[in-house]
């Protein structure tokens, strides 16, 4: 049975409360609390203790992808103190300079593979160097990013073969040439099926925005479930 949910950032940029409210009527049983932007982070952290997330089987938190004014050590300290002990913390490897500070998170730290805007963490070889410095970290496999880096899905295959046992969660979206998350298309499902057999049974987090063709969260979840269960690829002709 799939554990399937959405990133709050995909539903409502910078407004996790609105996103959680939107999800209440859905059957999503996973959520990624997104604080990709530095400015969103303090508010999310402060609210963590009071949020009722009990309906979700899986909850993760996405830390800021850039931290210009927040010192890296300060950010890590806050995450360590304020994020509940069992909640995975998804990070981008690009801004990391102080590796030991992040290594102490052990397997709670979930490194996301990157898109083409980033100079590292995009391929199996680049991830290998990162995991050398973060030996216990897990992997947030972003299939949209991986497909953007290599549309043939060869690199995704290599990442899964090498790091399949590290995969903690999956990100799903279609990422276009300008690195914007887009609704899933038929071509995406073709690509997905090339590596589907290698993907472990872990929570799936959609970063796909709602669209006029698919305006409901349950509708999005239906599409992903169909795709995962090997339904006709035509199911994605939205």
């Amino acid at each position, binding site marked *: 049975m799939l554990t399937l949910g959405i990133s709050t950032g995909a539903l409502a940029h910078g407004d996790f409360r609105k996103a959680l409210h939107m999800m209440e009527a859905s059957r999503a049983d996973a959520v990624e609390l997104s604080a990709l932007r530095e400015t969103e982070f303090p508010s999310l952290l402060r609210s963590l203790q009071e949020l009722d997330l009990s309906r979700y089987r899986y909850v993760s938190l996405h830390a800021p992808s850039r931290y210009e004014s927040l*010192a890296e050590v300060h950010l890590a300290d806050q995450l360590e103190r304020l994020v509940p002990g069992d909640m995975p913390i998804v990070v981008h490897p690009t801004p*990391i300079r*102080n590796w030991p500070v992040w290594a102490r998170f052990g397997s709670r730290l979930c490194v996301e593979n990157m898109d083409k805007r980033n100079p590292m963490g995009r391929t199996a070889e680049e991830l290998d160097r990162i995991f050398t410095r973060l030996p216990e970290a897990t992997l947030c496999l972003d299939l949209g990013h991986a497909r953007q880096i290599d549309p043939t899905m*060869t*690199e995704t295959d290599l990442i899964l073969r090498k790091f399949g046992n590290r995969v903690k969660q999956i990100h799903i979206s279609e990422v276009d040439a300008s690195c914007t998350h887009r609704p899933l298309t038929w071509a995406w499902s073709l690509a997905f099926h090339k590596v589907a057999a290698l993907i472990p049974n872990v929570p799936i987090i959609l970063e796909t925005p709602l669209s006029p063709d698919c305006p409901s969260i349950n509708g999005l979840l239906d599409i992903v479930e169909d795709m995962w269960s090997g339904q006709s690829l035509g199911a994605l002709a939205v």
Partner: protein
Amino acid sequence: MSRSTSHADDRNRASVSPPILDPSAPEIGIHGEIQTPALHALGKKLDQRWPALEKAQAQARDRIRQISQILQDDKLIPSDAGFVIFGSLARGECTSGSDVDWTLLIDGQADPAHRRVAQQVDQTLVRAKLKQPSPGGVFGNLAFSHSIIHDIGGQNDTNQNITQRILLLLESRSLSSDDVRRRVIGGVLNRYLEEDISLLTRTDVKRWIPLFLLNDVARFWRTMAVDYASKRQERAGQGWAIRNVKLRMSRKLIFVSGMLACFNCYLCPAQEAGDGAPSIAPNYGVRLIAQLRSYTNRTPLDIVAQALDQYAKKETAAQLFAAYDGFLALLDDEDTRRHLEHLQPEAAVKDRIFQHTRDVSHAFQGALDTFFFDDHPELSKLVRRYGVF
């Protein structure tokens, strides 16, 4: 300052390391830097030195550094493009008369500015006094991933398209970020293997020769040979002798390295993926692509050196590389080069310098004949089976 803050500062100072992608870190190096470990290993094994080749490699490295620096300083190359070099510079065989064969390889949204970028690159290289490719040819302009990946065979696979595609696989380097080149090469290799139905449907495949790719490499070699003859007529013999010796040597080398890369997929198949892989039936096609991709990051000489080390007798290897070193020495001598550039075909028979180039090329071919047909039984079987028909 609070105790916790100073403690945090101490930890920060003690533990900060450069980002993994720091250009000064050993993993990165210069974009496009050429390394030939198999070639060096073979030289040691044979206890031979090849001075012209060493000089050519050093010249290539210097020129690559120079161009890479220019591109970095001027921030010329957009993110959806790669500045890709070909020819002697990409092969690490830079001689006195070598030009800079380059292409701006685009893999992204069409942008009218791309043409302006290519022109700016051209002007920048001219200002740096780097010899430019001939105008109107395959190089010195734009190339688009779409036709390179999609038009393999068929009506739209023009001479220019096949040249760009095969040279991208066999002798290219990116002097900007390698992302675009790598992505396009991945797309091309995927095309070659996706068309091979057996690879897709059989689960017992342990080793395979990528025939679609091998045929395209062979087609390219024949195309070069035919174009050589065509140019002789078009240009009324101008530059004929230089093209003749290059066809016999460096162009042939490219073909040989491509053929060896394909044969090696059978002779030395890629191993299974490393630790952590889930216990699922291996996708041989993916491993084959990864293996072929590794060859695209090596020079033709390095691929040939490794194959000679594995499959050839020592004397064969020694003869081949001595001949190739002799060829590079010829090209690096400015007087010899100038002489060959002006030599007309009718005068070639009695020309001492040209006859010397023929002797060098005959020694090279003789070593190739011995290598492919005599030195190693498995290799000669493959050549007989796949190299002729």
